[in-house]
């Protein structure tokens, strides 16, 4: 990997490029990479992108990303402040907002996510924070993007210990049967980018990051990753993109997410 950028910047750029101009996104807690990606996309190819900071402040222009993605320091210059999450939920349900990004302690091949427990629910080995809004947003927001800075077999597992958030469920047709719109579009990790082809809704390798091999991805994944023909290399972030990211986030909050790896 070139010295001109870090894996954090590569991930942010990869995520940002997948956000079309009609993205209307919002973020929750501990979401530095998505927030960087929304801001990068807005400054580059997606000028009309809507971003509701902390699910509260519409389209702010913060001078920098503060130490919490729920902080009011993120809300500078907003055109609207919501009063409560309840006001806000309607827009998540009626499609006026369409994009959210998740992480999780475990992710399965269908993009279902666990952030509740490791081990049995009643007697957990690790009691995790809980799903929070995962069960809600994963069912109601049409465009979900997953990210993970810890692409390992412990995170990417064939079977979750608990399904906190709904991805493609048990496979093709499951969301449709429940009347849930959309579903996970993409997974951006520290090793690669993956998507969910319609036929199987299981993760498929879309690109490997520079210097990473298909075999390395497979070894780091606790299930078989679909590989369709030649796998391209993820485009590196351009110098412009790197500059923008570093300006948006001058104190490197996005790198905190790497520490957990």
């Amino acid at each position, binding site marked *: 990997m070139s010295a001109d950028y870090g894996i954090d910047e590569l991930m942010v750029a990869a995520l940002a490029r997948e956000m079309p101009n009609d993205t209307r996104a919002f973020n929750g807690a501990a979401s530095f990479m998505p927030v960087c990606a929304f801001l990068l996309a807005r400054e580059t190819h997606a000028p009309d992108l809507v971003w509701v900071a902390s699910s509260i402040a519409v389209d702010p222009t913060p001078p920098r990303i503060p130490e919490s993605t729920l902080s009011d320091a993120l809300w*500078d210059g907003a055109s609207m402040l919501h009063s*409560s999450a309840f006001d806000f939920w309607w827009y998540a349900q009626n499609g006026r907002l369409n994009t959210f990004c998740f992480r999780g302690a475990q992710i399965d091949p269908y993009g279902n996510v666990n952030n509740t427990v490791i081990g049995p*629910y009643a007697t957990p080995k690790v009691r995790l924070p809980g799903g929070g809004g995962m069960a809600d947003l994963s069912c*109601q927001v049409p465009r979900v993007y997953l990210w993970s800075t810890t692409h390992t077999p412990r995170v990417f597992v064939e079977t979750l210990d608990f*399904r906190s958030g709904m991805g493609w469920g048990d496979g093709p047709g499951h969301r449709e*049967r429940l009347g849930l719109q959309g579903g996970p579009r993409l997974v951006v990790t520290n090793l690669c980018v993956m998507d969910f082809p319609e036929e199987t809704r299981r993760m498929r390798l879309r690109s490997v990051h520079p210097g990473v091999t298909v075999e390395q991805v497979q070894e780091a994944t606790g299930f078989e990753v679909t590989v369709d023909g030649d796998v391209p290399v993820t485009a590196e972030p351009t110098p412009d993109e790197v500059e923008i990211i570093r300006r948006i986030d001058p104190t490197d909050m996005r790198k905190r997410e790497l520490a957990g790896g």
Partner: protein
Amino acid sequence: MSKLIAMDEAAARVADGSTVAVGGLLMNGAPMEFCRALARRGARDLTVVAIVAGPSVDWLVAAGCVRRAIVGLVSMEGFGLAPHFRRAAERGEIEVEEWSEHTIICGLQAAAARLPFMPTKAGLGTDMPGLHPDRTEVVEHEAGAYLACGPIRPDVAAVHVHEADVHGNCRVLPKLVWMDSELVKAADAVIATTERVVPERTFRAAPERTTYPGFAVDAVVEAPLGAYPTSLFPWHGYDGAFITEYLAACRDPEAFGGFWRDRVLAPEDGPAMVDANGGAATLLRIREAGTQS
């Protein structure tokens, strides 16, 4: 007929074994002094309802007040897991009834509206509804599936606000209540702890800025710095340094007793709590962290 009461009296209004909802979201806007008062009074067997919680639930668990937690999420956000919540759950010392943000709101709304349930698409296809089959049910309606969320009706809800008067009128600045308004609607009794008590005329001078009407609030407690160490935007941020020390202390059972006693439990009010944790320098630090105004 003033609704102003002392913090100890507020804590006494939460009976052992009852259901108490606490406001705030993660590291923000929680009624922390009220939680400390519950801990001091030694409340027991509480069912605590907290939509997205942090130190509030962790402290109630640490103090042994909690039998059951109805929560969407409990953590210290970027600082790590909530140590007492985690440990008690792993040891089976508390029951964790996990819902999710929106489904808890639905349950609270079902209670407020006196309905058997509120429906939502949230949670369909996940394992969450299976955790409380007596209270949530996946229904296959001909016009689409929904999750029926049964009532969650707290006996008492406690929320922290910026300004209140003796009649119970409350104002949150500039207007963000996190999800506290849902607790206020659903609970049988509502306790507002407030940074400052202001005259009624403050509300009458700008009625469009009143957040909760007096008739929705049963008791008001003056509690300056009552959200510390969580934030109270736009007046102050959370105290990350304190949380870091707290988490370090939690890793050392020997040290923890003293930390808990001297720096959490003993201080009799918000100012004393801040004094026990750095005093004026702490105030300056957290005021800088709350930058928007």
